């Protein structure tokens, strides 16, 4: 499998930078954003992103709001919520809004990598399906 391409969004700069380095060690291509607003900008310019690892509680726009925008913006990128606020309610809210999964801080890196890989597979499988459907559409148009 081609290495996952992920975006880390968290207001904790140190956390994000170290996490990015550790992800890189695990062959995961990572870009960073330190606020939800910046995250959305990065998403617009990197539409091939597989997964966004998103902190729930951030100053300004919070993680759940950004998740809403991602899902309403028809981005196919999967979202894994990461929160220091270990509430099942916010996790469930996130899942309802279309998050792939959620983890609580501090989380085990291997667990996170595993979730990222699962989410990437799902996203790519979804991409494939869409691509197939579009191909079939073009083919049928051509045949007709």
């Amino acid at each position, binding site marked *: 499998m081609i290495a996952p391409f992920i975006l880390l969004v968290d207001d*904790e700069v140190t956390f994000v930078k170290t996490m990015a380095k550790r992800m890189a060690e695990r062959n995961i291509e990572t870009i960073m954003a330190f606020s939800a607003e910046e995250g959305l900008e990065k998403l617009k310019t990197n539409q091939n992103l597989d997964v966004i690892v998103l902190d729930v509680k951030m100053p300004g726009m919070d993680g759940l709001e950004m998740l809403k925008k991602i899902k309403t913006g028809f981005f196919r990128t999967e979202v894994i919520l990461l929160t220091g606020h270990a509430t099942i309610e916010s996790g469930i809210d996130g899942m309802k809004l279309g998050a792939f999964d959620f983890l609580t*801080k*501090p989380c085990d890196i291997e667990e996170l990598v595993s979730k990222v890989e699962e989410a990437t597979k799902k996203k790519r499988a979804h991409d494939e399906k869409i691509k197939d459907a579009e191909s079939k559409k073009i083919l049928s148009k051509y045949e007709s």
Partner: protein
Amino acid sequence: MAQDRITNKLHSRKFTRNMVLIVILVSFIPMLLVSGMVLHQFSNSYNEKLYAHLKEMIHRHAQDIDSFLNERLHNLQFMLDSCDNVDLFNESVLQEKLFQLQQKYGDVFEDLGIINEKGVQESYAGRLKLENAQYSKAKWFEDALKKPFYISDVFLGLRSKPHFIISVKRVYQGKYFMLRSTINFEAFNFLAENLRIGNTGFAFILNREGNFQTKLHDDMLPSKKSYMDFISAGKKAKHGIYIGELTDDSDGKHIIYLAALLKNNDWILVYQQEKKEAFSDLIRTQIIAGVILFIGALLIVIMLSFLFHQIIKHLSEADREKEMMNRQIIETGKLASVGRLAAGTAHEINNPVAIMVQEAGWIEDLLKKEEFQEGENLQEIERALKQINTQGKRCKEITHKLLSFARKTDTQIQSVQVNKIVEEVVGISDKKSYTGITINSYKDQTIPPIAGSQTEIQQILLNLINNAIDAIGKKGGKIDITTRLEERFVLIVVEDDGSGIPQANQDRIFDPFFTTKAVGKGNGLGLSICFGIVKRMGGEIDVHSTIDIGTRFDIRLPRNKT
């Protein structure tokens, strides 16, 4: 606290006393007024009836006595009218006439005599030898000469026995003569003597000088008032009867009297009775009424005191309950504040901890690179990193507990079987295989499912069992978990025979962060979490503990409403 209790007690006593006094006044005043009025009316009525009865009696007796005297007088007048005057001077005719009178009226007429105007008894019929007896000096004769007929006062006279004389004056051959008869005193006396009521009621007759005209009984001493005293002191009523009251000078007794005039106002018939006896029925009634009133009042006072005591007791209990509820509300509020604080703190702590763990992880990642594999202290660095990870996880657990305290974990309400949770928790605890500690469970199989969070109830039981294990310590012991169905609650009892909780700490054990465990062994949140969960479920948690005997926690979780 003790001061408050004393103040409350004093306040309650004062309140009870005031209330009892008010109610007594409100209820007693009308009762006393009505009773007083009834008694007054009854007394008046009784007085009227008694005096009416006595008046009637005296009137009748006075009439009888007057009739007796008049009849005797008429007897003599008739005798004079029915035969020749000259015949009466004949002793045998007089004897004949006396015999006829005695035949008709018994011993009332003792003798008959004809006295000339000089006071010499010319003719006599009777038991005594009084022929030619000289009466010219006798007072009665002097008085009798002045009137056509005459009835004397009672006197001793020649026979030295009480008697009185009736005489009728006539003219014969230009000279006065007098037909005289001695009236049997006993026959006359009987008329007054038979007027007897009770032990102290009797009658007597007085003349104008205040001399008794009737015989007196030894046991009855009439009042020493004179004829005029009775008339002047008494109040005149119907039929010329005088009514009055007097106090006997000798013994100070109160006496009522009724007096009627006789014999053309020469005599007075007096009836007297001790007031105490005359009104004995009234006095008895008054005493009975007083006793009934007193007993009734006493009963009212006792009942009121009892009732107010009960009311005060209930009010005090209500106050205590209110105070307890207030304390619980304050406690709950305190817990909620701590909970909110805990939730915020948990989040703030988790972020730096996450960074620390992340950085440690990054070092671990770097150490895997070849250039670090040869390092002298590699193992020591790895151990230190592992420790950072472990402690990071510990921080995470603590923050989880704090968040749980603030109701931020899974609290999904569902139908749960308490017995099943007990079984699971006992199972988990047994696996921990604490040396020398046995955990027994006694389950009431009739317990129905209740609405609650499985994880929360598990958490309560685990916390209590962990505390019990710590309390028992290494010496070994037992933990009994009992479930029972009560009317409104499902009761779970967790009981150990451990070291117990000192009395001073029992009020504080549910306070957040209160712990007696060694540093690092407990965070003081376990029982606070239990308390919070149980209260949220609408239940109760109580602790009963004795040093060196053990501790018992009673958890009451509400049953489902059916």
